[in-house]
């Protein structure tokens, strides 16, 4: 009875429930650990969350358009490596621009493959996952490069403005832009329409090719941006970075209310889900649970929350 009621509430008010869960987790965290609410710990949480969060925002857009992007993890590495080839110039701007351009390019290819060649996105981006990772390795020779000379680049991962870490500001900028795109711009309704019912959207004059292209390009852009922030945080541009990120990003987006069948998902939902994940990992670390058991716990939590959502499988 209680479970059924909880489930009903959850499916009816996903975002309220998510915020509720976040508050509950924050409450538990403050009981467990006295250092939890310290500024430093909080900055840590958000900083950790920023990279996953940026990727998840792009993923949310693609999911809303009714597609999926498995290539984000390798796009992170590929574009960062492409940017690293310009490191000898000793200027931050060309490196960052090259990185972002590489991400956009990957997104463009994904989008063209899905919308023009009509390759199912699962296959298209699965292929791109392999291609991006191997190109990244081939370009870099499998070696990391170290951007510590590029002060501007490092600033994006480690610097702070008025006490707020830049990584967080970048994340906030992505969130604001995603919100603008999905809720305020003309593209937003088109994305939801194409994702919910492609045929109806096409018949009402929306170009599904353009819409899907934009979604994939945004996802590629976000992945490249996450690649920059991650590299700057770690102080190295590693061609094997971001492995498995695609699945974490999908999990975050889906728990935030995005549907794998398209037409559903919000910026606020994904943001809340990303925070829940960030806080959870933080609690695990504070309590001293090892990384491997963390995986098991997170898996259990994903299953539990997905169950509460009562996401129904669409069968045809």
């Amino acid at each position: 009875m209680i479970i059924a009621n909880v489930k009903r509430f959850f499916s009816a008010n996903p975002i309220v429930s998510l915020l509720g869960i976040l508050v509950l987790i924050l409450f538990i965290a403050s009981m467990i650990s006295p250092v939890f609410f310290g500024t430093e710990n909080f900055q840590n949480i958000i900083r950790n969350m920023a990279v996953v969060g940026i990727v998840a925002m792009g993923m949310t857009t693609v999911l809303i358009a009714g597609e999926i992007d498995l290539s984000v993890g390798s796009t992170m590495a590929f574009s960062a490596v492409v940017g690293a080839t310009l490191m000898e110039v000793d200027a931050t701007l060309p490196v960052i621009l090259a990185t972002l351009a590489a991400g956009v390019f990957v997104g463009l290819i994904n989008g063209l493959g899905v919308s023009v060649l009509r390759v199912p996105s699962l296959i298209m981006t699965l292929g791109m996952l392999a291609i991006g990772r191997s190109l990244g390795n081939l370009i870099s020779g499998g070696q990391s490069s170290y951007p510590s000379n590029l002060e501007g680049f490092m600033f994006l991962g480690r610097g702070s403005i008025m006490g707020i870490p830049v990584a967080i500001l970048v994340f906030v900028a992505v969130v604001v832009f995603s919100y603008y795109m999905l809720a305020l711009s003309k593209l937003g309704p088109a994305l939801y329409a194409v994702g919910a019912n492609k045929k109806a959207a096409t018949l009402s004059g929306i170009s599904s090719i353009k819409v899907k292209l934009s979604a994939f390009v945004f996802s590629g852009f976000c992945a490249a941006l996450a690649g920059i922030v991650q590299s700057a945080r770690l102080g190295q541009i590693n061609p094997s970075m971001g492995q498995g990120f695609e699945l974490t990003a999908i999990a975050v987006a889906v728990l935030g209310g995005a549907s794998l069948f398209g037409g559903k998902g919000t910026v606020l939902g994904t943001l809340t889900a990303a925070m829940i994940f960030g806080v959870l990992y933080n609690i695990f670390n504070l309590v001293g649970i090892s990384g491997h058991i963390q995986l098991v716990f997170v898996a259990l939590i994903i299953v539990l929350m997905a169950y509460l959502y009562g996401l129904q499988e669409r069968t045809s």
Partner: protein
Amino acid sequence: MSANDKVYSQAKIGSIAGDINYLALLSKYVGRHTLLLTFVVLVIIGTVTSEYFLTSANISNLLRNIAVPAILALGVSFVLLVSRIDLSVASQMIFSPIVGVTAITVLAELMDSSVLVRGNSFIGSSFALILIALFTGGIVGCLNGIGVMYGRITSFIMTLAMMQGLRGMNYYLTGGHAYYLQKSTYTWMGTTELLGIPLSFIVYIVLSVVAGIALRYTLVGRRLYAIGGDERSAALAGINVRYWVIMAFTICGVLAAIAGILFTSRLQSVDAPLGLGYELNAIAFAVIGGVSLAGGKGSPYRVFLGALVITTLLNILTLWGFGSWYQNLAMGVVIISMIALDQLIHRKSNNEL
């Protein structure tokens, strides 16, 4: 428009139509036999460019490389057939033997003896290990199915969580160290060849034939294809959809365990980080073979063709001296272009996830 122009334009239309018919015929043939033709072309290329390609050592190597991922792909194809997906096969593959070793170790400790000697060498019964591994695979697959059908969790998310959870468990159970499996029975499985054909490939072919017969001639096949074709109609026709979908996941789990036993018997060890990314290869094999992501289409024979083509391609690249980075690159390009070609030929509506 003058009469001449009209005749001219009609003739033009006629000749274009003729071309289209001819092209359509060709593309129909190519479309039906793309994989076989690709395989023949690859064999010719391989034979011409490398003197080692047709040696028995290389062929036996090729067959060995097909076996493990193809068994995973066979399992995944059962799940794809009922329009679900299983991302957890690779972690299941490693999890099953690890549970086998752990369970026997714990049992032995209860009886005051030890089956782990000299730095994690496992000396317990191989037979018991295999039995527990198969059972574990079945249970995990069944859990996936229950989560999907009773928990109503999308299969992508359910098996994604299972994949992560099992990876965590693999590290936890092994403590991050490899177990060495060097009992004679176990190593026998990894090294035996009959007439130059590795045992693992024979096991794969037997499983494939059994699966093919079951899907084509028995109730199992008719039920699974019906559910994949249209789940609601299948349910209305009185098919117990829950039972059969859970069955598909369970079969997939058992096959993953079999793949894991063959995989670890070849390596003579089992370690948590092994098999990373194999789930995507398995799905790629199945999909290249023509198993539809939308369900209801595909057969073990097609999975075999998909595995054959990709593995032969990778084998030729190895013989040419291209490392794994180039191989992954080629694999990505081949997956995308194969499916794009297929879509161009058939031009049917886009298969969504």
